[in-house]
């Protein structure tokens, strides 16, 4: 089998790419996708640790992370649609006021 460090290293690389996406990109949809990528990277690390320690709880936790991510995406995309309706733009730099 491949050493566990490789999986954790890959997870770290994916997480870094996601964080870079959040910092660099200006499109909120792509920022959302980067957040999903970071969640995915942490899921990969959790599953790898589950395999190493031979306990199932990590996989259960990954399942819960997936459900919470689904809920987060639904609400977040609804927010983006609402912001687009009021401001007619989804550039992240223009979202600087709390009132629509």
């Amino acid at each position: 089998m491949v050493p566990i460090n490789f999986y954790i290293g890959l997870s770290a690389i994916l997480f870094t790419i996601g964080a870079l996406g959040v910092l660099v990109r200006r499109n909120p949809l792509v920022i959302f996708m980067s957040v999903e990528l970071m969640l995915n990277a942490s899921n990969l690390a959790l599953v790898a640790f589950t395999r190493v320690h031979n306990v199932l709880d990590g996989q259960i936790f990954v399942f819960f992370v997936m459900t919470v991510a689904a809920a987060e995406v639904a609400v977040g995309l609804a927010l983006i649609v609402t912001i687009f309706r009021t401001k007619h733009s989804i550039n992240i730099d223009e979202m600087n006021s709390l009132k629509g």
Partner: protein
Amino acid sequence: MTVNLILFLVLAAACIATALGMLVSRSAIYSALFLVLNFGTVAIFYIILNAPFIAMSQITVYAGAIMVLFIFVIMLLGTDVLPQPQALPWQRPAAIVLAALLIVEAGYLVFFGSATGPTIPQAVESFGSPQDIGGALFNQYLLPFEVTSVLLLIAMVGAIILTQKDKGGR
């Protein structure tokens, strides 16, 4: 170089390449499609790591439902290509420096820290089977499972309330 290692390296290269593709592509719809590929490769990693249930959930929930929602919203808004005016000119170099710091730190911890063991032990034949997951989910983790259903309901109601048009002045 064993077969496992070659398989891992090829898949990892595909995974990182698709993630970078998502990061750099100008069009949001290309980003979404790259992300679907990335989720697919990560699902294959889950299968290698004895987690078939999680792999199938990954395909259906992430690559299926969530990405369809993303693509639907991208097409609904019709703003798949945005001009990118930078409000802060130093933001991009600063972000790249911070990301480099993060990856160096994580790499040091992963390969020189003492948190992880060197090799993966041989698993029991049925480890991580859907039966095991279901048993743990409905016995040991029943309350979190039910709370999750309530959370999904709240998210659904919230999304509907947020996106409905104002009727008669709220």
